[in-house]
Structures are given as C-alpha cells and as structure tokens.
C-alpha cells in the first residue's frame, strides 16, 4: 500500500541479478488515504477505555507508549535506514527535561514536552553530525548511538544536577489537572492523551514521508551517492530526519514520566529502553507506516498474556505453574519465532500478500 518499503533499507539492488521479468507495478502513493485510515482508527479507539476492564487499560496505555517510541525509531532507522541502537537517549531526554522542569520550576509537562522535543532534537543533530561526519555505517553507526545513550545514562548517574542515580518522583497533585497532565487513577484521560500523541506521531510520519525531505530521505537510503549526484543535500536530509525521530521518541519519554510518576537513569536511558523502541517496529514491519503500531499492539500485551497464562495454566500444563522465568522463556521464544518467520514484520507480510493478489 505504500511505496516506500519493498526492500529492507540496506539491500542495494544488484543490477546483474535484477530479474528480467517485469515486476508488478507499485501502487501510487496515497497519502490522503493513509491519513483518512488514521483518523478513522483514532475515532474508533476513543471510546475504548470506557469499554475495557480497568486493568486492561494500563496495558492499552503501555501499547501506545511502545507505539510512540517505535514510530519515532522507525522514522530514522526504518525510513532512513540509519539503524539506531540508542533511542533511549531521546526517550530519556524527553523524560528528564520535562520532569526536571516540573519538579524544580513547576513548569507544566505540556511545555516540558515541547522543550524535551527541542533538546532531544538538538542532541540527535549533534551526535548525528558527528557520526555522519566520520562516516559511520551499519553496525558501527548503531554502536555509536548506543555509546551516546550509555554516556547519558552514566552522566545522569554521576550528576548532582539531576539527582544522580536517585532520579525523580513526579509529585502527586491534590487535585487532578489537565494542565499538569495528572488525572485520577484509571482515568480514560491518560489513554486519550497517549492516543492523541500516538496518532499525531503517525500523522507526522505520514506527512514527513510525503514531504520533500521525506522523499529525499528514501532516495538517500536507497543510494546515497546517486542522491547526492542529483543534488540531494544528504547530510541535511539525514540530520533533519534524526532530529524529527528524536523529537517523536522524546514525547514518549515525557508521557512515560507523567504516567508512571517516576524516572531514574536506568528507566530513562537504559539499553532496554532502546530495545523497546526497536522491538515493535521490527515485529510490526520496519519502514512501514503501520508496522510500529501493529508491533506495539502485539508486544504490549504479550508479557501480560504469557504471565497470566502461566499463573493459571490450563490443566494440561499445570505442572508449569509457578515456575519463575517460564513466562519470559515463552516470551523469548515467541519473539524469536516471529522475527524468524516474518522477517518483514506482520504488516510487511500481510502487505506482500495483498499485493500478490
């Protein structure tokens, strides 16, 4: 359905092996329809928290946070083909900047959200510039992003400025307030805000892909030299992409802090955060518009499902009850199987099927 993605980013086509038979035509990009679908989904999902049992709502919000992180990651690493293993840096900056402003200066998290986006974008531009200036590629690029995220974590642990390893509690307010993004426990407002932010992020990624820079980006991903040769400013395209990707992911960090009320360097900058940004995108389909959201929809509840199943196993499996670690084993097995059997991700596999019809 979308023209950007038939190939994984780093497979450059080899003309000598190009099939002589004519490939199926690619459908024209239909950005308008993507936006329409998005709007319909958003409207359909609005009443969800009123229908879901209350404890499932926490899972729904977690799904949306996952989706938000993965949509951000996907902009840079999927559409842009620049594999980041350090998106924790941006998530953490979003979380820390907004909470620091809130706790120390009483600034509303909504403003913190914007400031966090700016800081994350600036940081991404800086490290992006360094990594591109020194022409890091592939695994080396990924490891450099990882190293920067780790350095932020270590700096946070060792800086009095941000409370060292203790981190921050978001203060509970006596009254609930939209201005300070704090509502009654179980309030649907959390879901609605997360939904709004996620829908906005997906819309941004659609509009970005449609934009001049977004189309440059795909060209740069497919062949950097050729893009430069026709006048595409490669460096600027990549930096804008990284900044946008970082800004989107930082929103997830800000919301996370307001929803979970607590951050510390590991929660914000730990490598598991970077992995959480990658997982949904890969499971759902890298470099697709809908992949990250679909991946989050599958992964978000998976942990709870395996844990619940093994807590009250069906009679046949009752000997497994209470074996600690088993739920994680099932989770890991499912993860490996999905990645092996669906290398294009769930959405990618479904889309290929539709196309072949």
């Amino acid at each position: 359905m979308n023209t950007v993605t038939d190939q994984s980013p780093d497979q450059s086509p080899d003309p000598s092996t190009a099939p002589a038979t004519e490939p199926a035509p690619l459908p024209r990009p239909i950005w308008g329809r993507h936006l329409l679908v998005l709007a319909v989904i958003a409207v359909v999902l609005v009443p969800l928290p009123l229908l879901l049992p209350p404890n499932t709502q926490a899972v729904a919000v977690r799904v949306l946070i996952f989706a938000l992180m993965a949509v951000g990651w996907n902009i840079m690493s999927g559409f842009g083909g620049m594999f980041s293993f350090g998106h924790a840096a941006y998530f953490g900056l979003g979380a820390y900047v907004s909470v620091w402003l809130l706790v120390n200066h009483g600034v509303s998290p909504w403003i913190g959200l914007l400031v966090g986006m700016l800081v994350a974008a600036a940081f991404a531009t800086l490290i992006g510039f360094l990594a591109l200036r020194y022409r890091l590629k592939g695994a080396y690029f990924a490891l450099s992003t990882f190293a920067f995220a780790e350095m932020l974590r270590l700096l946070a642990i060792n800086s009095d400025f941000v409370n060292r390893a203790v981190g921050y509690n978001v203060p509970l307010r006596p009254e609930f307030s939209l201005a300070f993004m704090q509502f009654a426990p179980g309030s649907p407002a959390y879901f609605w805000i997360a939904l709004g932010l996620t829908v906005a992020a997906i819309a941004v990624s659609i509009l970005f892909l449609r934009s001049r820079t977004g189309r440059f980006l795909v060209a740069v991903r497919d062949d950097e030299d050729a893009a430069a040769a026709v006048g595409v400013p490669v460096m600027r395209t990549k930096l804008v992409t990284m900044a946008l990707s970082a800004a989107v992911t930082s929103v997830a960090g800000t919301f996370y802090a307001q929803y979970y009320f607590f951050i510390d360097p590991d929660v914000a900058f730990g490598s598991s955060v970077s992995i959480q940004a990658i997982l949904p995108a890969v499971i759902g389909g890298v470099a697709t518009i809908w992949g990250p959201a679909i991946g989050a929809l599958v992964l978000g509840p998976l942990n709870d499902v395996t844990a619940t199943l093994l807590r009250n196993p069906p009679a046949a499996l009752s000997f497994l009850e209470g074996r600690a670690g088993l739920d994680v084993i099932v989770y890991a097995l499912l993860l490996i199987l999905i990645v092996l059997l669906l290398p294009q991700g769930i959405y990618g596999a479904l889309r290929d099927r539709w196309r072949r019809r």
Partner: protein
Amino acid sequence: MRKTWIAGLALALPLALAACGGSTPPGTAGAGGATKAAGEAIKIGSLHPLSGSSAADGQQMDNAAKLAVEAINAAGGIKSMGGAKLELLSADSQGKPEVGQSEAQRLIQEGAVSIVGTYQSAVSQNVAAVAERNKVPFVIDVSSADAILAQGYKYSFRLQPSGTVLAEDGAQNLFDVSKAAGKPAKKIAILHEQGPFGTAIKDTFSKKAQSLGMTIGPVASYDAASVSDFTTQMAAVKASGSDVLMVAGYYRDGVLVANAVKTVKPGVNAVWGVANGAFDVPTFPGEVGAAGEGFFDSNYHLDGTNPDTQALMKTYQAKYKDQIRTAAVLSYDAVRVIADSLERSGSADPTKVRDAIAQTNLKSLIASKGPITFGPTGENEGAAPILMQVQSGKVVQTFPKEFAQTAPRYPATPAS
C-alpha cells in the same frame, strides 16, 4: 501464503488472549474490591522480582509471604471477620519499574486489599504512587531509598529501616564497637556502588562518622552491574593507611570485595559493611571461604535469638530446602502486619485497613529496638540495624548486647 497465516495468527493471538486473560473475573470488578461477600478469601498482593537478576531474593520473599498466609489461615484466619481466610496473589515485577507498576495495578483490580513488596527501590517508587492513587495500602518489606516515603504518601509503610537510619546506625555501631575494643576507628575508606542505595548510604554515613570524630579516607564508587575486580581500589585503601573499610553494595560485588581484600591485604582493622547485600548472607562465608572471616555488617537482620523467628527458619528450611534470608522474614512480617490490621479493623475495605496499619503495634521477627509501629511518614519506628560478623565461617549477631549471639571480635584484620 504461509506467511499470511502466521502474520494473522501473531496478530490475533495476543489480542484474543489479552481479551480473556486480562479481564477480571466477575464479582471482583470495581475499584479496590470494596466489600467481600462472606466466605470469600481476602486477597493480599505479593509483588517481587521472581525473575531477573534479583530473583534469588524475590523468590524467597514470595515463598515467605505464602508461608505467612498459610500460617495465619491454619490458625483460624481473620477471627474478627468470622475466620475469613487469606489468599496470596503473587506477581513478578521482573525488577522493572513499569512492569511493577502495571502488576500492582492488576493486583488492585483483582481485589488485593493491600500489597507487599517489592525489593528494588525503583520499583517501590512506582508501586507507592499506584497505591496512593488507588488508596490501597502498600507495605514495603525491602527497599531502602528515603525518597519513597519522602513524597508524603499516606498509603505506603516501610518495615525495613530507611537508608538514613541504616547509615547513621552503621556509623554509630562502628564508633561504639571499635571504642569498646580500645581501638577507636579513625580513618574510614569507603567503597560504594554508584546507585541510589550506595550513594545515599555513603553520604549519610560520612556525615555521621565525621560528627563522631572519624575522618573519611579515599572514596570510590563502582557500577555494581559491571564491576569485575577491586584490587586497584584495595591498593588505594592500603596506600591511604585507613584503618576501616566501609562497603555499601550488593552480593556479587561483595564477594569480589572479599576476594580483593584477601589478595591485596589492605591492612585495615575491619571491613565494615553497611546494609551490605553480601556480608550477612548465609551463603557468603561458604562462597568466599577464609577471605570473608571477620567481616562486619551493620544491617537489618532476622532475629536469631527470637524463638518465633527460629521456628520460621526451621519451617522454611523444611519446606523450601533453603536457608531463609532476612528479606524474606520481612515479607513474612509484612503479611503479619496486614493480617493484624484486618483483625483490628474487622473490614476488608482498603482505606480502613490503611488506618489500622497506621496503628500497628506488633512484635517483629526482625531484630529491632521496639515493636513495629509506624511514624507519620510510614517509617517503621522500631526498625534498627544490628551488627553481624562472620565468625568461624558463620554469620552471627554480635551487637547490641540484647541481640548478641557472641561478642564482636574487633579488630578483625581480614585474611591474616
């Protein structure tokens, strides 16, 4: 072809399962499980790291909470509520704050009138906020960070002594014991893990020690998750001429410290753990052998002189073929505190249970200076660390006198 099937399945399966697995059983829906029909068990949530790097402690704590529930039910349940039985809902935090948070949410939805947990401070921070917002009492068995109760939460209570108490008493114990031995501690080298726990202990301990007239020697921090050797730090301690080495850390790094002490022989009078995760653990002397002989730890600890505690230790050993640790005894105590409060309130309404917990006055199975009573912030006012020492390959209680199984041996130059 095949791929579509798999994709469809991968998409549908978790969603379908989430729909059934996640929904609450009818009858317990509604926030906080307000009132219970007669005969229905009263649910208590136990939230601990059952997997991940702290699984050893987490599983013990969950086991001990189960034992407590069994013991209370065997003794007739909650008598003021017609002998109502307790039921423990176990949950795995995986040591991750966000998992802990959503599991706490789930336990509350499933009707837990109170939650016991959680070991890691980062997880407890999250769960405390959830408990506060849902108005369900949260009894912290283990988690030392002062910040958890510094938020002014009304629904969180802590059994173990706070970091401040641990560190200050640790310095005081050092002062008392070394002075009584005629070799007052003068210069203290400090080795601490760089997380919130080790950093807070270091800060408070240094202040207190200085106010007692000691000086602080070299201070070194380390990352507990990745450190693999301490010989350089130990050489620095040796070179500094410090007479005591204070260590605030966890189990794995504690073992490395012991090995480095044995190798370098820093020549201190004592290795002094403060709330150390290794030096008072029963498996520690066996793991490091002679290297750990004489190590001190000023820490909260189960009371080996209390017959009730001894009975619990025996029961645990018999049932789980393992030596019960202090953390697990605290979980046991936490369930006792909740049962006692249910008894006094005669109601399973979480807010009433909370008020009853605030009025607790119960003898602890942990060595403490008084019964469990909660102060205005929810700290256990009876909680206090005691001094343990590794003597002849065993961890024994040595100070203060009322808990001493034998006298402290000071100086205890290690690995000599």
